[in-house]
């Protein structure tokens, strides 16, 4: 381990890095007093100081440090009353678009997109799923046809959250129907203000329209907005999805975070509802939720300096199952109160809280956890094939040209 000296003490490399980070935070705060600085100005200055996401490269909001140094910075800034970038408003941008742009983007793309993405000036959404291409994402039919230096895009996308607030989208489209389906896709960055983009709310079983359908008609995308090589869209999209699954399943969080905490609080506050049967079912799920939390913690310790692998899929499986079982149990626990619902009125929420609103909402919304971002069935395939090395299904659709596949 390399050693360094600060204020006369011999320090480990980690300690040195933390000390340097600490000073850099102090300098940022000195130059931009949060109490008097405009929020957006402060965020831009923080980005420029390399304190936005320290594991990103220098010049792109980071300092090439391990990812787990970030909470240290966040804590210092929060303590000083600095504004944050309201990450929940731009989850897809931060969790999926940004790491993909970083991994596959050109220098120009990184410079153009990462800063306003991080500050929240530009919200992102994801145009992947289609009515005919759900789990079989490589079957997307949205066409992008080259016209000189631009691509002309036509098609329909579904399950797009934040489409109505987003400035940009990551988009998967078919650029070559004459090759097998995985080989004919390309990955684009799409300007949602293009007049050919039509966003319509998609109402779901909770009564809300948290997602959208997006219709693309003659949308023109410059070739400079293509991410990765032409025909390499499938590989780029997979990197995005791995990030999504880690984002959903693999976060370090304290005990009784999320759904288990909600149900445990109901249990503690409503002693009159308790029965021996419900107690054992609660404890069984409490155990599984706590073990899932530790498993996520172990996973993040493993990947802290690396890239997310297929193990994130395993975490997402547990997360979805537990959210569903816990929210189902809560309704049984509530009994009469579980028969009631807050409101069926159609709304378009900006931020989705899986554990928000009432028990009925939690129960219904949790059903989506095993569908969105890869169904549990697809994730089991991924674990079986990529982690355990089991043979893949016999398939007829891997070698035929996409245009010749049966529909």
């Amino acid at each position: 381990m390399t050693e360094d000296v600060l204020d006369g003490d011999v320090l480990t490399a980690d300690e040195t890095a933390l000390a340097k980070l600490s000073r850099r935070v102090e300098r940022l705060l000195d130059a931009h007093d949060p109490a008097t600085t405009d929020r957006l100005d402060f965020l831009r200055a923080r980005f420029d100081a390399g304190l936005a996401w320290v594991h990103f490269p220098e010049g792109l909001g980071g300092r090439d440090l391990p990812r787990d140094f970030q909470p240290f910075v966040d804590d210092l800034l929060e303590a000083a009353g600095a504004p944050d970038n309201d990450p929940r408003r731009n989850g897809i941008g931060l969790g999926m678009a940004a790491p993909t742009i970083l991994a596959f983007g050109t220098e120009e793309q990184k410079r153009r997109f990462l800063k306003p993405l991080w500050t929240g000036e530009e919200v992102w959404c994801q145009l992947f799923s289609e009515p005919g291409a759900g789990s079989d994402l490589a079957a997307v039919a949205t066409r992008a046809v080259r016209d000189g230096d631009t691509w002309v895009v036509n098609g329909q996308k579904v399950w797009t959250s934040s489409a109505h607030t987003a400035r940009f989208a990551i988009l998967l489209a078919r650029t070559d129907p004459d090759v097998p389906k995985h080989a004919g896709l390309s990955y684009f960055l799409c300007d949602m203000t293009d007049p050919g983009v039509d966003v319509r709310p998609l109402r779901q079983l909770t009564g809300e329209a948290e997602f959208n359908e997006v219709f693309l008609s003659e949308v023109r995308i410059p070739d400079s907005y293509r991410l990765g090589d032409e025909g390499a869209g499938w590989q780029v999209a997979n990197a995005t999805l791995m990030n999504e699954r880690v984002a959903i399943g693999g976060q370090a969080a304290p005990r009784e975070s999320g759904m288990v905490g909600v149900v445990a609080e109901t249990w503690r506050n409503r002693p009159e509802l308790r029965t021996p049967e419900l107690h054992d079912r609660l404890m069984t799920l409490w155990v599984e939720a706590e073990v899932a939390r530790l498993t996520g913690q172990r996973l993040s310790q493993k990947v802290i300096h690396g890239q997310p692998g297929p193990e994130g899929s395993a975490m997402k499986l547990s997360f979805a199952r537990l959210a569903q079982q816990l929210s189902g149990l809560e309704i049984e626990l509530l009994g009469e109160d579980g028969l009631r619902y807050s409101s069926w009125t159609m709304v378009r929420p900006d931020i989705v809280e899986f554990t928000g609103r009432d028990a009925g909402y939690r129960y219904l919304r949790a059903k989506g956890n095993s569908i969105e971002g890869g169904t549990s069935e697809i994730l089991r395939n991924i674990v079986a094939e990529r982690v355990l090395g089991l043979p893949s299904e016999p398939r007829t659709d891997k070698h035929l040209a996409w245009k010749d596949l049966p529909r």
Partner: protein
Amino acid sequence: MTPPSTSTGVNLLYSEVEDSLRQNLRDLLTVRCTPARVIAMYDGEGDLQPSLWRELSVDLGLAGLLVPEERGGAGASAREAAVVMEELGRFVAPVSFLTSAVVATTALRGTNHEILDGLGAGQRTAALTVPLHLSAFGFRAAVRMDGEGRLHGAVTSVAGALDADVLVVPVRSGAGVELHLVDVDGVGVTVETVTSLDMTRQLADIVFTGADSTLVVGADAGDAAVREALEVGAALLASEQLGVAQWCLDRLVSYLVDRKQFGRPVGGLQAIKHRLADLYVLVESARAAARYAAATAADGDPDREVAASLAQAFCSEVAVKAAEECVQLHGGIGMTWEYPAHLYLKRAKADQIAFGTAGAHRQRLGELVALNPATQIGLRHD
């Protein structure tokens, strides 16, 4: 001489009469009770219920199924009513059959009161004024009478009250529980709608503040009448749950045979096939349990209390499981408002609470079949 049927016990099959009743009802519901019209009820666009109930109750005569023939009813049994419940479950039909024609009618059946004429003819619709989650073995009356014979008290989460014109109210008296009839529109009666998880069986909170009433069952018989009504309700709810589960299975099979991913029908993938096979086993098992509950209720069999709790303990879980699988294996489309899968999920989940949870019925069964619980909590700490 022993008839051959005793070697295999209670008849659990459908009769030809039941098959034909089912077909008539299904034909009507297919045309009249479409998913789009049912979904509209969640937005308060509820013109479906009154017209549909009129057709079922009057035209098909279902309101009078359990009304004795001497009061103008069909004098049929719980077996036929169970088949009706199955079909209503299959269409998540928003009608008062369970609440009025089964539960309220059963509570009043012993009275020979003239209200039965109206109920049987479909001219009147009644609701037993108890919370929907209450089981037969958990029943307690919440309404009391003042010195001038007027009713006071609140009953929350009552099913069927919004579509009823008369309430059948259990009233505490010193000598037991009486049953009173109360006009829904009468003075001193407030009926407040509840936004419900299952809007196809919407609940209401009811408050009595000095309401007038008519005594129909005296304190010697009211408690038993309510408990019998709730027990028959639980027994027949199992058939509704069977209908819900059957729809989910049928719809999944037909959807997944058509739906292609990775160049193959999704229904041909072995993991999906095995889950559907397991679901089939559950649905067929639920059918046996529901038929047994209906048959023993119809025959006044001494095993009918066990049968009702058995059916609730089993079928309520199967309906929820089937509806959850139905949403999941449809993928995204199963989550949408336009696709009817969510109607079945909401009905199944609400039915799981109705007339007692599966856990409560298991506990009750333990008492009935001499499998007693631990006498002390935390006794065994190994």
